[in-house]
């Protein structure tokens, strides 16, 4: 049974437990002043599948990502990543353990070349230690390996023609691609993508989607934030809906559009028609 098939008979209700979770979140809250940006009682993310995190603007998706990846610390509660308590660990520690994220506002390292951006992504580099850095023979061989891995990924993401350009010369969509490719250099087990398709032209979106799907076939777990429901339905195995900091619904992509809670969250409680997914009502800033 594939990981996705394992989800088939899981109840579509918030906080439901899953057969093989890579990430388990318990009672995580984060307030900014009086505003409770995140208030998640329980959430499990299934290993090896693509989970979409959706919700209106300001729902707390990015804040939730920050809490999970160590870029922010929760006021209460904790997350367990791969059997290891993640809360309290710093972002770089979690990244080394395989939880790698991208950002809603792309972070291309503009004054590094594209290939240097890629090579940075590799973890456990001997030459990254001060004293070994001083002696090239200690890291030359590893550097070559990293470089050929980077070149292969650049080719896969069709960025090889930009290889030696400054990343700062890339377009917004190309930067999104670069950021995703770079995160793969870190050999992640869980990638967390915050709006990977935002601002990417439709032609490029298609190839980005293919890349995300290919992650799944390589056994990498993907959790991503997305506003475009077509995209969500196309690639995700499971959808988690957030509103006002809380998880209000979970389920397979087909079940989400007709969920009354979700409709209320997006359209206000006076609405009662099923969410028209094809009209892309959920389209946020993308």
């Amino acid at each position, binding site marked *: 049974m594939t990981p996705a098939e394992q989800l088939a008979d899981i109840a579509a209700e918030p906080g439901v437990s899953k057969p093989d979770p890579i990430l388990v979140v318990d009672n995580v809250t984060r307030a900014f002043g009086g505003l409770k940006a995140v208030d998640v009682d329980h959430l499990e993310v299934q290993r090896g599948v693509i989970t979409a995190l959706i919700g209106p603007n300001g729902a707390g998706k990015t804040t939730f990502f920050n809490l999970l*990846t160590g*870029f922010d610390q929760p006021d209460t509660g904790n997350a367990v990543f791969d059997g290891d308590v993640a809360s309290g660990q*710093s*972002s*770089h*520690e979690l*990244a*080394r353990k395989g939880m*790698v*994220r*991208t*950002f809603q506002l792309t*972070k*291309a*390292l*503009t*004054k*590094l070349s594209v290939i*240097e951006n890629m*090579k*940075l*992504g590799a*973890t456990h*580099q*001997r*030459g*990254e*230690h*001060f004293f070994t*850095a*001083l002696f*090239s023979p200690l*890291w030359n061989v590893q*550097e070559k390996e990293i470089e050929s891995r980077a070149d292969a990924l650049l080719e896969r993401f069709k960025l090889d023609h930009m290889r030696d350009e*400054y990343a*700062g*010369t890339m377009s917004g969509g190309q930067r999104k691609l670069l*950021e995703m490719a*770079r*995160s793969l*250099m*870190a050999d992640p087990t869980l990638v967390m993508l915050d709006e990977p398709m935002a601002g990417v032209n439709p032609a490029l979106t298609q190839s980005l989607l293919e890349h995300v799907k290919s992650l799944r076939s390589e056994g990498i777990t993907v959790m991503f934030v997305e506003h475009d429901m077509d995209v969500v339905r196309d690639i995700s195995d499971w959808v988690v809906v957030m509103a006002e900091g809380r998880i209000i619904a979970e389920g397979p992509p087909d079940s989400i559009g007709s969920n009354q809670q979700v409709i209320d969250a997006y359209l206000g409680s006076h609405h009662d028609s099923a969410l028209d997914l094809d009209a892309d009502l959920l389209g946020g800033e993308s």
Partner: protein
Amino acid sequence: MSLAAIDWGFILTQSVTQAFDFNAVVYALAAIGLNVHFGYAGLLNFGQVGFVAMGAYGMGLSITLWQLNPFLAVIVGMIFAAIFALILGLPTLRLRSDYLAIVTIAAAEIVRLIARSTVMRPITRGAEGLNEFIGPFRDLSPFSASQTYGIGPIEWRGSQFFAVVVGWVLVGLSLLLVAQLMRSPWGRVVKAIREDEDAARALGKNAYWYKLQALILGGVIGGLGGMVQALGNATVQPDFFVAPLTFFFWLVLILGGVGRVWAPVFGAVVYWFMITFIQNTGRQMVDAGMIPTSIMDTSQIDQIRFWIVGAALALLMVFRPQGFFGSREEMALDAR
């Protein structure tokens, strides 16, 4: 009253000598350190003179206080600068970059004020400074104090030539060190942190630790500058290490071009050449009556030369904002 009255040979000799004298070395080392901080790691250090002072005092005290041998004294000077980096970096490098900037300005002044305080007199000799450390270094010098050394008209007394030679060797070694580090994966991480700390952290790099390492490295190189100063002047005076000196180091760095390995050295050489050239030319023009004393006397030249250098730097920023060797292409990326 003509240009013939001016001794251009003398002016050029003076200018070139100063351009390669130990003072230029002090500026070069301090600016190489700042380049590591700002050019590569993106750290805003406005107290580089504090690191220079720590190096000088560390080396001086090792001999006056602890009677260590000169080589150990140099090591202690480096350790002093490294400790200063830890004191500044540990509490601030987790915070936004502006915090380091604020703390460094104050800390450098604190170093000077502590060194010259009466309480510290038994150790640092207060405002009088350290003088008795130079003996062991003179003993090491292969150059005779009674002779002059140099190339053609560019020459130094033996006692100072030692500082000049040691200084330029240190500059060379520092440049090799920085060049090697910056082409290594270590340098890649440091540059990535300069570009975007969060991106580096998301890829598993401990940004805090790398910033601390960069602060130490640049600080220790600045500390070497302090030691060259001590050797050249044969004294460590607290009031040499005044806060504005840091901004001359910045000037030298920007002149050469930020983020280029050897550009700060070029900046230091050009700076000292300009300063000396303007000063000597101005003096001779006043002496020759070309500039009436009602407008300016020789003592005012010393101030005027900084105006001229300032104006030259302002022009450089207009026409070549990346400095002599900086990359215009990289600079343009900031504007995108």
